[in-house]
């Protein structure tokens, strides 16, 4: 048989973003793949070098647009390391709350897109409907639906509005009930199993060798979750389980993400209870006003730029909805970071595409790549 290269992308319903999957086909069989990324390379690492520390947060939201707050958190931990700052406890709980809500929102977005890929149309509406409830909550305390700029170096921007926690509990109850529906729609469907079982298998050893992290890794049965292994913020004070599956295929990734959403609800209930009983400051005291403030004081615009930070390097790592994200912030004493380097989990997950696509059929590509949950913003940065 003659083989041929086929381009799937950059504009293709499978890609969910702007990237190109070059596939070497032998009939319908996939012989080789070559993912081509960079269509959304916006030079975030370079622009950061020209920006004040707080101004980089703006870029973080847009870096991974389905999990903006988690990426803010990632960058904030690294820059607090580099600047030697300590945020108050309430701010840490608020950050965990943001992280977990963002995890649910991101997984719902994935659910909406992925289930549509395998041919079920209604769950798209369900996923977007429930995601909007979470975005409403975000909007009530950050003012935005997607790009929040809520976390600050040394704390968070503002406290929660009154009545927030009660409303949150209602949303959590609603979500808990909906997760049952989702599973009925998918795991209860024979079509789903015929489409997804034993597809895109990537065993744990291959995952580790190729840098694959997140739900893809946990679906292969390896218990690695930075929230447990290397707790940041206040995750060591919260009670939750690591979602696991052992099938290492598309169904396994679905099961892991669903379980992660349930565990996120469990974490959120604890966090919301804690927030109810522990009022306090949300910005560290040793943080000067000009660093916490979103703008310079009137008449002191130059004041903001004259400040010098102590030298240092910050390294942070958080369990993002897609996997393990890392930031490496080098501070050379100026008002801007000297170098910022981010590690995107999806970048590594896509780079291993050859391992989980070769040998399957071309019609299997949409479910497999859907189960990877590609967010091009963070791949290309």
């Amino acid at each position, binding site marked *: 048989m003659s083989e041929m290269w086929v381009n799937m992308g*950059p*504009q*293709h*319903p499978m890609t*969910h*973003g*702007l990237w190109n999957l070059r596939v070497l086909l032998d009939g319908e069989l996939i012989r080789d793949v070559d993912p081509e990324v*960079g*269509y*959304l*390379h*916006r*030079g*975030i690492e*370079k*622009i950061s070098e*020209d920006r004040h520390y707080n101004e980089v947060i*703006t*870029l973080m*939201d*847009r870096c991974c*647009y*389905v999990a903006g707050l988690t990426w803010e958190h990632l960058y904030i931990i690294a820059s607090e390391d580099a600047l030697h700052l300590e945020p108050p406890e309430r701010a840490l709980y608020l950050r965990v709350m943001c992280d977990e809500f963002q995890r649910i929102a991101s997984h719902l*977005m994935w659910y*909406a*897109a992925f289930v549509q890929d395998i041919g079920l149309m209604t769950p*798209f*509406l*369900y996923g*977007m*409907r429930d*995601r*909007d409830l979470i975005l409403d909550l975000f909007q009530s305390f950050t003012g935005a*639906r*997607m*790009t929040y700029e809520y976390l600050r170096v040394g704390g968070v921007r503002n406290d929660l509005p009154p009545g927030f926690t009660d409303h949150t509990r209602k949303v959590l109850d609603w979500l808990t009930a909906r997760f049952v529906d989702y599973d009925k729609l998918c795991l209860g469907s024979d079509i789903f199993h015929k489409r997804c079982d034993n597809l895109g298998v990537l065993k744990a050893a291959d995952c580790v060798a190729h840098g694959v992290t997140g739900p893809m890794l946990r679906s292969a049965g390896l218990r690695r979750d930075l929230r447990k292994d290397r707790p940041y913020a206040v995750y060591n004070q919260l009670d939750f389980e690591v979602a696991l599956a052992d099938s290492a295929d598309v169904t396994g990734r679905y099961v892991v993400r669903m379980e992660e959403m349930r565990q996120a609800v469990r974490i959120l209930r604890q966090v919301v209870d804690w927030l109810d009983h522990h009022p306090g400051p949300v910005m560290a005291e040793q943080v000067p006003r000009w660093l916490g403030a979103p703008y310079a004081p009137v008449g002191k615009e130059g004041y903001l730029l004259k400040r010098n930070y102590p030298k240092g390097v910050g390294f942070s790592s958080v369990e993002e909805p897609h996997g393990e994200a890392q930031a490496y912030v080098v501070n050379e004493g100026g008002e801007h970071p000297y170098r910022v380097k981010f590690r995107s989990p999806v970048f590594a997950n896509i780079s291993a595409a050859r391992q989980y696509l070769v040998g399957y059929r071309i019609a299997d590509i949409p479910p497999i790549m859907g189960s990877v949950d590609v967010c*091009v*913003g963070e791949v290309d940065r």
Partner: protein
Amino acid sequence: MTAPTAQLARPKESAPPSGSLELGTELPMVGEAAVPFLEIETLRAKEFIPAAKEALGSLIAEQGHAKVIRPVFNWAGRNSLFPLHWGLACCAIEFAAAFGARWDAERFGVVPRSSPRQCDVMIVNGTVTWKVAHKLITLYEQMPEPKWVIAMGNCATGGGPFRTAYSVVPGVDKLVPVDVYIAGCPPRPEAMLDGILELEKLIRERKE
């Protein structure tokens, strides 16, 4: 529990086709009352076709071909805008949310299509980089005439927060002609729908 009985508007069966329809050059937009063209639609086909033929024929003879066909064409076009289904960046998520349960953009006749050959509006929903620039132009050229471009969000309008970056096109109007700009980073789904309604107004006034 019984389902609520639907009180749907029935077609007016008794009204005979009048023969001289009030088909002006200005057709009202959806939402406005007393749309003559919509009333024709509710007739049965065997009554409608001769009536419409006669009405259009007399109008064309009276006012000229272009003056009559154009409004009908614009009316049909603006109420079935098919945008290109692609996601560039952050705005694509809000673009998707607009087709979700809460906003339901399809009620405006907006249905995303995956093939540029079936589209008449390209919504540039995100940052355009130089790497994707020629592909964007190819997609635009593949779309059949008449076609429109909506620049959704600050990045497509002028580069947004990335305007200084080495890889970003500072505004998609450097590459293709843009008809409507939507501000916001990203614009809310309401803003996107508003942009589509703005485009409908532009199409309504289209002359050639």
